[in-house]
């Protein structure tokens, strides 16, 4: 299966571990990634400024994806996935806006694609690759790992535009983790937001949202948290220390991208999965459980 991939600014400019691990695991599962010829912002960070500019920016990405000749597009970032899905939902229905957008796209020699399916890492692995295929390829089972998942907000809501998983009872990420041999914990704070969108303007609140969730997770004796979004990863991993301080505790919880854990289970070398880049104690957990 050949899939076009749009990484988005956050992954390309900062969250390298996600890109590295996706690039490592997908071809091993029969998914060949095709990078876009030119990449720009999906529009999400300027939703507050201009609705039309956002629609143009994301339509531009959809058009670049269409240019590859492929009809499947992987968008590993939750926020980019939402913005592109919102725009596709609208342009497939709102002819007037589509005409305005197409006129602008034409100036760059681009065309809004007739057919394109937008995937996130989680539903691509769960629905297109499938759990059985993943379980069969596991070389190093993650037996005895007690993990929790954080699906994030943007790939499960709003359901009317079609999301990667169910809005109130998301289960795909848990099933994917279980396919690697690990155990997952169901917990009442699962749908709580990481707070990343407030980090730039309301830092203390953002950090306390992240800290509160980490604290709750440690209360369930969870050994690690699994995420699939660069923003959530930033809050729980790189900002973990600050988030701990915000809720008045010294919290330590290893935080992985799902694709990093998948890579470990598939037997990929840890360094190429970007595991050295995680700021939380992921290496300690892997050492303790797998002896490496």
């Amino acid at each position: 299966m050949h899939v076009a991939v749009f990484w988005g600014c956050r992954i390309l400019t900062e969250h390298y571990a996600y890109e590295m691990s996706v690039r490592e695991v997908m071809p091993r599962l029969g998914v060949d990634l095709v990078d876009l010829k030119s990449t720009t912002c999906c529009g999400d960070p300027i939703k507050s400024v201009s609705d039309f500019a956002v629609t143009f920016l994301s339509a531009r990405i959809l058009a670049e994806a269409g240019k590859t000749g492929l009809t499947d597009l992987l968008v590993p970032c939750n926020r980019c996935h939402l913005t592109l899905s919102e725009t596709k939902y609208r342009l497939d229905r709102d002819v007037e806006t589509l005409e305005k957008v197409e006129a602008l796209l034409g100036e760059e020699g681009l065309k809004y694609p007739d057919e394109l399916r937008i995937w996130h890492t989680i539903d691509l692995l769960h629905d297109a690759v499938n759990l059985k295929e993943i379980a069969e390829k596991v070389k190093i089972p993650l037996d005895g790992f007690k993990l929790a998942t954080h699906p994030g907000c943007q790939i499960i809501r709003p359901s009317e535009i079609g999301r990667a998983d169910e809005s109130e009872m998301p289960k795909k990420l848990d099933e994917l983790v279980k396919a690697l041999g690990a155990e997952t914990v169901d917990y009442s704070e699962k749908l709580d937001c990481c707070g990343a969108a407030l980090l730039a303007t309301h830092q203390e609140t953002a950090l306390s949202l992240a800290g509160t969730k980490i604290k709750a997770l440690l209360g369930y004796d969870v050994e690690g948290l699994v995420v699939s979004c660069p923003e959530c990863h930033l809050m729980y991993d790189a900002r973990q220390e600050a988030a701990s301080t915000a809720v008045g505790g010294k919290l330590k919880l290893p935080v992985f991208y799902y694709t990093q854990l998948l890579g470990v289970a598939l037997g990929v070398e840890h360094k190429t999965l970007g595991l050295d880049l995680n700021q939380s104690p992921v290496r300690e957990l892997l050492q303790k459980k797998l002896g490496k």
Partner: protein
Amino acid sequence: MKVSLKDLMTMAKPAAELRLKALCKIWEAKPINCFQCMRCTSGCTSLKLLELKPHEIVDLVKFGFIDELLASDIIWTCATCLKCKERCPQKASPYDLIMALRNVTVEQEAKVPEFYMNTVSQILETGLMQNVQKITTRTMEPLDREKLGLPKIALAGNKFKECLMKALGGA
């Protein structure tokens, strides 16, 4: 003391034009259909921070009391978790309304958190929301895309900037 909706309304005058401007910016959601069931408020991530709750924001707009919202930090406190949009039985979507109010604030050249306008400049300049960041491992080894074996980022041409400028102007 908490300012109630009633207090604000006794002090303010409705702004019909701004109200229309905000409502026209929303494509599919219908804030006007809100019947104050408060499901949005019961799930709101930012509730603790808010002077006015999501269902109250919708109510203020319905009655045209928009100046209070445009001038305050309230509309900039949304965490965009989308629970309000998902759970609204009336498709009123406080999320879409808040984004529309932010857009109106920008158009009115009222106070907008610096971060948002800086991001616009950054995207105009490079196509991306931020410059490529250098990072370090937990053992403080500095790394970049090249050292990590990641390919060069393929940026857009000059024409992109021109088109985005037009889009920002509403094309």
